[in-house]
């Protein structure tokens, strides 16, 4: 049976409007609310609860859950489902995300909308399966071979796990690019109060379907429906457009053009520009106390929480500290960071890795202020006291 999104039924299955919920489950809720009708899963700690939640709830809203044979198969099925007309998603953690890298690139190259929830842990390799970390913030940007733009959100609360999963679907549908929810073991396994948004407050974005006359249809070029839009219209399989979709370099018709430099440049420039042209519109940041700050935390995900506490401690002690939280980490809000670097003396970037997002921060700061990496690895979050010490070190 083909899935039809039924907002009333979805809310019936999700239950009460206000709930005390696990972060991983909030991703399930977000997916279902967004109209996800296919989930390809594979068990991995700390992301398994997303698959478990989907296995319980998807059949009840008319969607399909399949536990695939591995993460490569999961993302493959998710991409296939998108071409069959579904909004589709998967969830994984570090090692599974590494396995998905080839097909993640395939989704970029074939302009397939889909969502990956990555409940991050650390590595290299198996690392610490049950503990949180921010190990894949660069992998999501650079992990697959070739040139691409990433769409990556980092929730700091359970509510944001829900909201950002919906947002990830919106971004991926809008840009026809995979979008990732880069949560982590801390937020994924945290329980907090959430509010399920009302239908009227949700602005769901759907891919623009191909509707043009079949003889005039060109599958891999600017939209033939929306003016000056670099995102092509989507020819769902079975709708008669008879589209050939390939991960090879292809021309506008979708035919392989592997030995043609102009075709490759044109294609890859379009699929990156469709996102980076909109980079200014896409900024999703939270600013706290930045107006009169001498020092700023630049932070995202779970680490924003101890950073905020450290900021408050400092404010109480008369140190002028602010905080800039990246909700959408990729595309990186370069201009915002450049502006910030001119207004403060020092930026501190706490991360649960040995320094990943600190690099684009340094790049954007262009030497206008000092940028300090505040790493913590090993599966423990930063303690506010530890971060406070970075402030005193000024």
């Amino acid at each position, binding site marked *: 049976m083909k899935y039809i999104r039924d907002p009333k039924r979805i809310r019936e299955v999700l239950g009460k409007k206000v709930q005390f919920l696990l972060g991983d489950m909030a991703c399930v809720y977000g997916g279902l609310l967004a109209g996800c009708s296919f989930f390809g899963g594979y068990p991995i700690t700390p992301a398994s609860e997303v698959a478990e939640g989907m296995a319980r709830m998807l059949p009840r809203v008319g969607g399909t859950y399949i536990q695939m044979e591995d993460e490569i198969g999961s993302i493959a*099925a998710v991409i296939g489902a998108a*071409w*069959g007309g579904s909004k589709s998603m998967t969830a994984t953690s570090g090692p599974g995300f590494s396995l998905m890298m080839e097909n993640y690139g395939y989704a970029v190259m074939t302009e397939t909308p889909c969502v990956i929830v990555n409940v991050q842990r650390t590595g290299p390799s198996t690392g610490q399966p049950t503990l949180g970390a921010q190990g894949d913030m660069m992998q999501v940007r650079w992990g697959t071979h070739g040139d691409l733009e990433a769409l990556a959100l980092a929730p700091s609360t359970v509510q944001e796990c829900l909201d950002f999963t919906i947002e990830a679907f919106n971004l991926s549908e809008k840009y026809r690019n995979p979008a990732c929810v880069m949560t982590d073991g801390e937020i994924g396994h945290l329980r907090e109060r959430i509010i399920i948004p009302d239908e009227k407050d949700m602005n769901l974005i759907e891919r623009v379907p191909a509707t043009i006359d079949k003889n005039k249809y060109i599958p891999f070029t600017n939209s033939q429906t929306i003016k000056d839009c670099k995102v092509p219209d989507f020819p769902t399989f*079975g709708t008669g457009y*008879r589209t050939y979709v390939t991960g090879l370099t292809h021309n506008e018709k979708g035919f392989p053009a592997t030995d043609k430099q102009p075709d490759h440049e044109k294609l890859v420039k379009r699929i990156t520009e469709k996102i980076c042209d909109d980079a200014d519109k896409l900024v999703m940041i939270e600013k706290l106390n930045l107006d009169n700050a001498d020092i700023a935390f630049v932070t995202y995900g779970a680490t924003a929480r101890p950073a905020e506490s450290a900021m408050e401690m400092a404010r109480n002690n008369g140190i002028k500290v602010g905080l800039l939280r990246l909700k959408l980490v990729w595309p990186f809000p370069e201009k915002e960071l450049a502006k910030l670097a001119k207004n403060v003396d020092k930026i501190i970037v706490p991360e649960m890795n040995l320094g990943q997002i600190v690099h684009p921060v340094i790049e954007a700061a262009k030497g206008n202020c000092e940028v300090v990496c505040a790493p913590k690895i090993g599966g423990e979050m930063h303690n506010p006291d530890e971060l406070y010490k970075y402030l005193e070190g000024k």
Partner: protein
Amino acid sequence: MVEIKTAEELNKKFLREGMWPTIFCNGCGHGVVLEYTFWALEEIGWDMDKVVFASGIGCSSRLPGYINADGLHTTHGRAIAFATGIKAADPDLNVIIFTGDGDCAGIGGNHFIHAARRNIDMTVIMINNFIYGMTGGQLAPTAPLGSIATTAPYGNVEHPFDICNLACALGANYVARWTVTHPYQPIKSIKEGLQKKGFSLLEFLAPCPTAYGRRNKLGDIKKHWAWYDNNTILKEDYEKIMKYGTEKEKEQVKDKIPLGVFQDIQKPGFFELYDDLVKRLKEKETKKGESKK
């Protein structure tokens, strides 16, 4: 209902314009499998808007590009997993996978195993030419013992993979093997496989004169094609000889590759069982709702 009479008419109906010439070498068997598939589709009479082809990487995986239908040319070995998603999203679509021995039995083995086990409603057409042709002739998992490849320069010491045997063990609903040198049985088998609910595997032995025949000294194209007649045997004949034949007869056929339909059953497919599950849940909830009232 067959309206088409000639190969030319068939090509006009099924081939995609603008993709020619093909990448295939002289004497290659892939085009023949494509034509057999067209005849089978013509006989079934499906609306080609509702037929989707998926493939991985390799020579055989280029076939969907030449067909005037939706096609998903995916990553190496993963076509079956992609196709699982397509079928889940739209059960009205008929999903056909073109794959090769390296793509399916090598790198994609695990996806093949689990799609067959789940009995996903799809037809996998694996063209087995004993070699990685596109990359220049490296050793394939189906290559006969002793065969020469660029990565087995002194002869293959690995036992070949019998993919039909594996599919039967996994409970696939339809399993058949033919060579490209006989037209009638393959067309009939493809038709049966396509119409079968659940997982179907069709293996085709096909020559690769460039990367396999040349190195293994199978002679010119004509002689290479004859190899397939001389080194295969109908499954029924093979079984009969192995049971009742003389020692000499057994010796003559023991290394030949059996052809035929190996499995033809009606196990319920994944999506049938999943639909039952959805229905069961709905009934349970309706009952619960009524008892509350």
